């Protein structure tokens, strides 16, 4: 039993070290993340990412939506299953909304790429 735990831990540690090494090797490449548009909401509504992350929105509703952050980014109209991707390079708080249904709002908080290696 104890041996098994030790083995598992070792495996975990190896996996962890590998992950850290991979991240260290490609410091600018944060993991890309997805936001779902469904039931007239952005999900998750708030998200923290590292600078350099590409966020991809996918519209899963039967009604078109847009993703608009005034002065920052603006998607074309997204019909069902259409996607929009934006790469966040500058840290800051980006509030966005659907310009057709403005009660739909969301936020992406972009942190500096350096520092913690934890992926979002």
């Amino acid at each position: 039993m104890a041996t098994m735990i030790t083995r598992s831990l070792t495996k975990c540690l190896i996996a962890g070290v590998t992950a850290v090494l991979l991240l260290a090797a490609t410091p600018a490449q944060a993991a890309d993340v997805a936001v779902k548009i469904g039931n007239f909401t952005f999900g998750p509504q708030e998200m923290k990412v590292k600078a350099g992350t590409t966020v991809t929105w996918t519209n899963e509703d039967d009604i078109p939506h847009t993703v608009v952050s005034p002065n920052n980014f603006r998607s074309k109209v997204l019909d069902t299953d259409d996607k929009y991707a934006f790469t966040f390079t500058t840290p800051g708080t980006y509030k966005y909304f659907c310009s057709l249904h403005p009660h739909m709002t969301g936020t992406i908080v972009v942190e500096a790429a350096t520092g913690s290696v934890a992926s979002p």
Partner: protein
Amino acid sequence: MTERDDGLNRRKVLECMTWAGTGVLWTIAGGVPASLGIIDDAVAAQQKGFTFLQISDSHMGFDKPANPNVKATLEEAIARVNALPVKPSFMIHTGDISHLSKPSEFDDADRIISQARMDVHYVPGEHDLLDEDQGKLYRDRYGRGSKGAGWYSFDADGVHFIGLVNVVDLKAGGLGNLGNEQLEWLENDLKGRASSQPIVVFAHIPLWTVYPDWGWGTQDGARALGYLKKFGSVTVLNGHIHQVMQKVEGNVTFHTARSTAFPQPAPGTAPSPGPMKVPEDKLRTVLGIASVTFKQNEQRLAIIDTPLQG
């Protein structure tokens, strides 16, 4: 606000009467039942007064399960119009002509609606301004003689009609929006008019707050209504919510028309206001048109909602 016609029990009626006593009457109805008697009444009214027609939310190009054939249901709506015993003076379309503002979608709408052979006065819905130039296609096609994003007014049979645009420059977290420029125009447009002149205002999103959680309202609508206060008869006609809803407040009657394309849920009864799938044989009972009759010396216009079937 979430009550429906089928929930009208004795207590509700009493509540309504209480409200009536204080000058606010809610007539929350899923539409006037289209029994033969009502249609006969409508026909009788049409013969005495001046009638115009409202259609809304045709969504040409929509092809999802809630209605895979929106052209067919628009054609049926126009057939209903053509079957009226007295031809209405003209038609208003309260927006969302198209689903994605594609030229082919506008073409389909024009081809079908023109079969009614009458003037049509349009205002845009948010689905009509999705082209690259954010509404140029709409304005080129429907906006001749209009101001700003497409607002205008005209007179017919002594009634002053005002078409407003509340789907432009929407703000994050907000509702429908008229904007300062349009509101100033409205104030001027109404200046000097006799308070006895009946006014009909039409716009896509309801001018009154139906359900803010779903964005069903206009944030600066109250300012527009303020300019209309002095008039003895004001009728506000909207679309957008794909269901019939009516409210009478003082001299103002608010009314929303059915869509010709697909129904949407009653406020708060679904996780979102998205298209509502109903059984195939029920679809035509929740789509339809509205005819509005104005009779001299009557404060309220008679609005008859007719479903495509039932």
